């Protein structure tokens, strides 16, 4: 594979785990996901009275024999899933203390899930945002479409301020209802606009998953000597002694995380807090397994 963020052995191991939808999807093709409409699958849904114009082939003659009434036998419809990966490409996502940056880590997750989705017949699309929505690749189930997504992910360099909330509003408006929206971001912005955007997505019946990506250094904040901190987005600087302000930093971080978690829960988002030093396979396996369980219920 020519993209270093694609781990083929990992994808091969994960291919046995389907990417399930937590809610009924509205696809344009028959697929493996539950649809809100009646269809022709083998799974019985309900009986309803015959009305003129119904296909007589769907009459349940055994029920007529028992009741002298005509009943139509309804079956569940199966459809495919449209997934949209929203990747935050603002300057803050370029932060890396050790190993890979937050953007690189988010890119690996997005690429892996997109591959798994297309591989199981679902459609995958990509939206990249920084200050505004920079790139939109509509969902498609064609294998060649993956190449386009990978190429886009490979070519993006994080920069600029965060405009995630406005990008999500745009996606919520434009994307077909009942899509699978996967957000990969450090969410370093005001939580109120983000909460509004998540509610907008929820209103559009989207299945939203949030991968909250942070670097271990941002959490621990255990620097020993004075540092001059340069904002990666605005380039403003602060000289501080981390030892002295670590307690206040942790307090502010915890407050932020609590707020984000609460907003995601209220918007019924599948929230996952991850750090860039986490191994990818357990993370994705846990994600896919959890979704599978929820889909059966």
């Amino acid at each position, binding site marked *: 594979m020519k993209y270093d963020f694609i781990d083929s052995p990992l994808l091969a191991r994960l291919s046995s785990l389907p990417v399930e939808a937590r809610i009924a999807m509205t696809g344009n093709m028959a697929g493996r996901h539950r649809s809100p409409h009646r269809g022709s699958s083998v799974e019985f849904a309900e009986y309803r009275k015959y009305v003129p114009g119904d296909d007589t082939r769907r009459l349940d003659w055994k029920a007529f024999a028992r009741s002298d009434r005509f009943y139509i036998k309804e079956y569940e419809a199966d459809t495919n899933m449209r997934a949209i990966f929203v990747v935050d490409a603002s*300057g*803050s*996502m*370029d*932060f890396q203390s050790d190993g890979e940056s*937050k953007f690189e880590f988010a890119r690996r997750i997005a690429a892996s899930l997109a591959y798994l989705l297309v591989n199981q017949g679902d459609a995958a699309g990509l939206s990249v945002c920084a200050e505004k929505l920079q790139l939109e690749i509509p969902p498609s189930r064609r294998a060649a479409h993956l190449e386009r997504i990978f190429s886009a992910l490979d070519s993006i360099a994080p920069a600029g301020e965060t405009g995630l909330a406005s990008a999500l509003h745009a996606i919520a408006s434009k994307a077909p209802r009942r899509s699978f929206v996967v957000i990969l971001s*450090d969410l*370093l912005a005001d939580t109120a606009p983000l909460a509004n955007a998540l509610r907008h997505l929820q209103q559009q019946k989207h299945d939203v998953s949030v991968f909250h990506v*942070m*670097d*271990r250094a*941002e*959490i621990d*904040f255990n*620097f020993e*000597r*004075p*540092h*001059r*901190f*340069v*904002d*990666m*987005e*605005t380039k*403003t600087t*602060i*000289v*501080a*002694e981390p*030892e*002295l*302000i*670590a*307690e*206040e*930093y*942790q*307090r*502010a*971080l*915890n407050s*932020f*995380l*609590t707020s984000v*978690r609460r907003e995601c829960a209220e918007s019924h988002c599948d929230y996952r*807090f*991850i*750090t860039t*030093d*986490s191994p990818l396979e357990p993370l994705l396996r846990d994600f896919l397994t959890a979704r599978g369980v929820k889909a059966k219920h």
Partner: protein
Amino acid sequence: MHFLSPSLLWFLLAAAVPVVIHLVNRRRHKTIEWAAMQFLLSATRQYRGEKKLRHIVILTCRALGITAFAIAAARPVVSEIIGWGSGSINTVVLILDRSASMEIKTASNQSRRDSALEKISTSIKNLGNPRLMLVDSASGELQEISSPELLPTLSSTAPTDTAADIPALLNRAIAFLSDVTGRSEIWIASDLQASNWLPSDDRWNTIRSTIATPPEAPTIRVLSMNNPSGPNAAIRITESRRAGDELLLDVEIHRDTANKDAPLSLTTHLNGSNTSENIATTGKLARFQKRIALPNSQSKGHGWLSLGADANTRDNTAYFVYGPSRKAVSLVVAAPGESANYLALAAAPPGMNMEAPIASPDQAAQKISPELAAVLWAAPLPEGAAAEAMRRFLVSGGHVCFFAPVTQSRNTFNNLGWSPTTMAPAGKFFILKEWNRSDGPLRDGLDGSPVAAQRLKALRRQIPEGDATTLARWEDGEPAFVRRIFDHGTAWLLGTVPDYSWSNLGDADALLPLVQRIIDEGNDRFQNSLSTTIGAENARPQNSQARIRIHGPGDELTADVFLAGVEKSDNGLLAINRPVIEDAAESLNNGAINSLLEGTRHTLLDQAGNDSDGKGSAEAWRLFLFAMLFFLIAEALLCLNPKAPCTVHATSIPKRG
């Protein structure tokens, strides 16, 4: 405070290291691109007040810890004597008050002198053993002390029965230090007894002007050893004379206020036998006459009176010596008549071992001899050979009382003379109005009873003229009785005579005590050869004399000239007692000392009630080491920043790796 290793004080500069490191660290920060800026901004805004103060306190603790270590390494010495503000000292001249009053025991049963020596010895040792010079108050000699530890063992610091002349000792020290380079100090260990410090002495002006001027003038440190003491009484024999088979001792007992009404035990030691008695006295000063019966066979002998043990045992003993009974012979110079007879009767009352021949003024030159106790002169003032004989008699210690000459005469004697005779107004008298009741022949008795001098009434009088001290005045303020000192002798002039046409002086109310006291004082010069005080000229052994002490404090058979006792020489026995001024209890207060040393660099260390430790100084490095530990522990505790546990997201944040 003095430092034994002052060079290590350079390490004090290290106290700036934490601050410098802090400042350098702030300047040498590492630049890092940071994403989670919103938390950083929030944390920086919250970092205010208490935390910033805590950081400053931490820095301060570090600096103070290093400072305390540097000071401890320099081995500071905190001394009660030198205080906290002293640098290195090259020379210390110690003026040690060895007077008898310095032997008063303090609460720790240690004498003031011993306590001072101990403190000074420790202080000198802790000061790094600067050059130590000792000027002791007894000898006044300057000597170098090789080691301060020897101070308490030296004979020149031993107890004495002497008095001290602090101004003289200070002058001695200043004279020595005038040739000494380097920083020097004068330490005075004294009980501040006023009679030793002589605050009204003119020498203090010289001392102040000498050491107040130059910048390198020595610092004076006064170690005031006037600690409170227990009850104390001091005994003194003011006069001793033999009257036949009796020895009459005029005794004075000074007591402090603490026990002035308690009975005293008085022991009389006479030629090896002791008798004790309790005496009840009241007041701080008690005077009485002690009569001791002498064996007929003994023409001479010695003894002493002693009091029971108290705070100062050195002033509990008064020594006396007696010789064979001596007839008091006086000469009455007057024209035959009533005055001559009265004077002869007053000078040699019947039954007394006294003799008073009468001579005319013409015979006076031949009759006046050094063997006479006194001369009673009721005639025109002597002239010519008689005047010359009279001068020799006076200079040798004789006493002469000149009475009004009755006849008009303008003779003068050493600028002394008489005014013309004046008569009292008709029906009136010249009455003696006031007289000195504490000094002179008209003084009150030992028991305080006054002489009935107010009964003296005169019809005629002559006013003494010339430079003399007035001891009594007539009612109109004119002098009635005056005194002129002639070397060792004294001349008295009384402006009337015991003649019925002049006054009632012959009634003996005033005449008898007046004449007897003059004769006694004249006769005392023969008795005085038997007793003296330490420091007096006759107390110093002559080179040709082989003098040994036969009795002294604790029966010490030493020839220490600074101890009281009875000594035997070729000239006979001599009782040597402590100086009179040593019994004066008055001491100077801090204000008086400051006034005496005004304009000089001086400190006064008041030891009153502060004699428990007996050290005077100590190395204080432990104190600073503890201070360093305190600051470092405080710094460590402040640095233990108890981080608030991440309770909210502890489970949601993935573990590292």
